[in-house]
C-alpha cells in the first residue's frame, strides 16, 4: 500500500469518527434545545401575518432579508452563466 493510500485511509477514518460522534450526540427528533423562538412563531404567525403556512411566513416576512440575498444569488448565477457561455460562443 502506497503512502498516498495510507494517508487517505487516515483522513477518511478521522472524518468518519467525527460524523459518527455527531450522529450519536444529536438530540431527539422534534425536540429543540431552545424552543422560545419556535413557540413564538408557531403561536403568532396566523395573527401577525395572516398566512396559514408558517414556513412561507418566516421566509418572506420574519426573515425577508434572507430571501433578498437568495434572489441576489440567483441573479448573480444567471449573469455568470450567460457571461461564460457567451464568450465560449464567440471564440
Amino acid at each position, binding site marked *: 500500500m502506497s503512502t498516498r493510500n495510507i494517508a487517505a485511509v487516515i483522513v477518511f477514518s478521522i472524518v468518519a469518527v467525527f460524523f459518527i460522534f455527531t450522529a450519536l450526540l444529536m438530540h431527539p427528533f422534534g425536540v429543540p434545545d431552545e424552543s422560545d423562538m419556535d413557540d413564538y412563531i408557531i403561536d403568532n404567525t*396566523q*395573527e*401577525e*401575518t*395572516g*398566512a*396559514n*403556512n408558517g*414556513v*412561507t*411566513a418566516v*421566509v*418572506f*416576512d420574519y426573515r*425577508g*432579508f434572507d*430571501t*433578498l440575498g*437568495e*434572489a441576489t444569488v*440567483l*441573479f448573480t*448565477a*444567471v449573469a455568470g*452563466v*450567460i457571461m461564460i*457561455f*457567451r464568450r*465560449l*460562443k464567440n471564440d
Partner: protein
Amino acid sequence: MTKMSKIVRTIASIAFPFAMIYGLYVIAHGHLTPGGGFQGGAIAASACAMILVAFGSKWTLDKIKEKRLSVFESLGGIGFIAIALLGLVFGAAFFNNFLTGSNFLFGTIPATGSGLADINTGGVLPLMNFAVGLKVIVGLFVIVLVMAYAATSFKEDKK
C-alpha cells in the same frame, strides 16, 4: 442540441401542461400549502427544461424571444424589492407586512388554529410569492437554455 425521438417529444408535449399547472398552483397557494415561490418556480422551470431537452435548443430559441425573458426576470426582481419598499412607505420597516388586516387585497386574518384555508389572506406574502416565482422560473430556464445552446454551437465548432 438536436431533438430527440418522436416518442420522447410526444410524451413531453403531453406532460408539459400538467407540470406547468402544478408549478403555478404551488406558487399561487404558497401562503396556504407547503411550497412557495422558489419551489413552484423550480417545478415550472423543470417543465420548461423537459421541453428543451426533448425538442432541442434551436427549436426552443425559435419559439421564444430572449428580450422577453430578460424583461420577465427583471420584473420579478424589481417587483420583490418594490413590495419590500412599499412596506417602508405604508408601514414601519423594510419588508413590513402592510396589507394584513387592511380589508384590501389579501387582507383577511384567518381564524387561529387549524381549519379551512382562505386564499384571500396573507398580506404581501402572495405578491412576493408571485414575484419570486417569476424570477426563479425565468432564471433557472435561462441557465439551462444558455448551456444547451452553447453546447450545440461548441459541438458544431469542433466538427
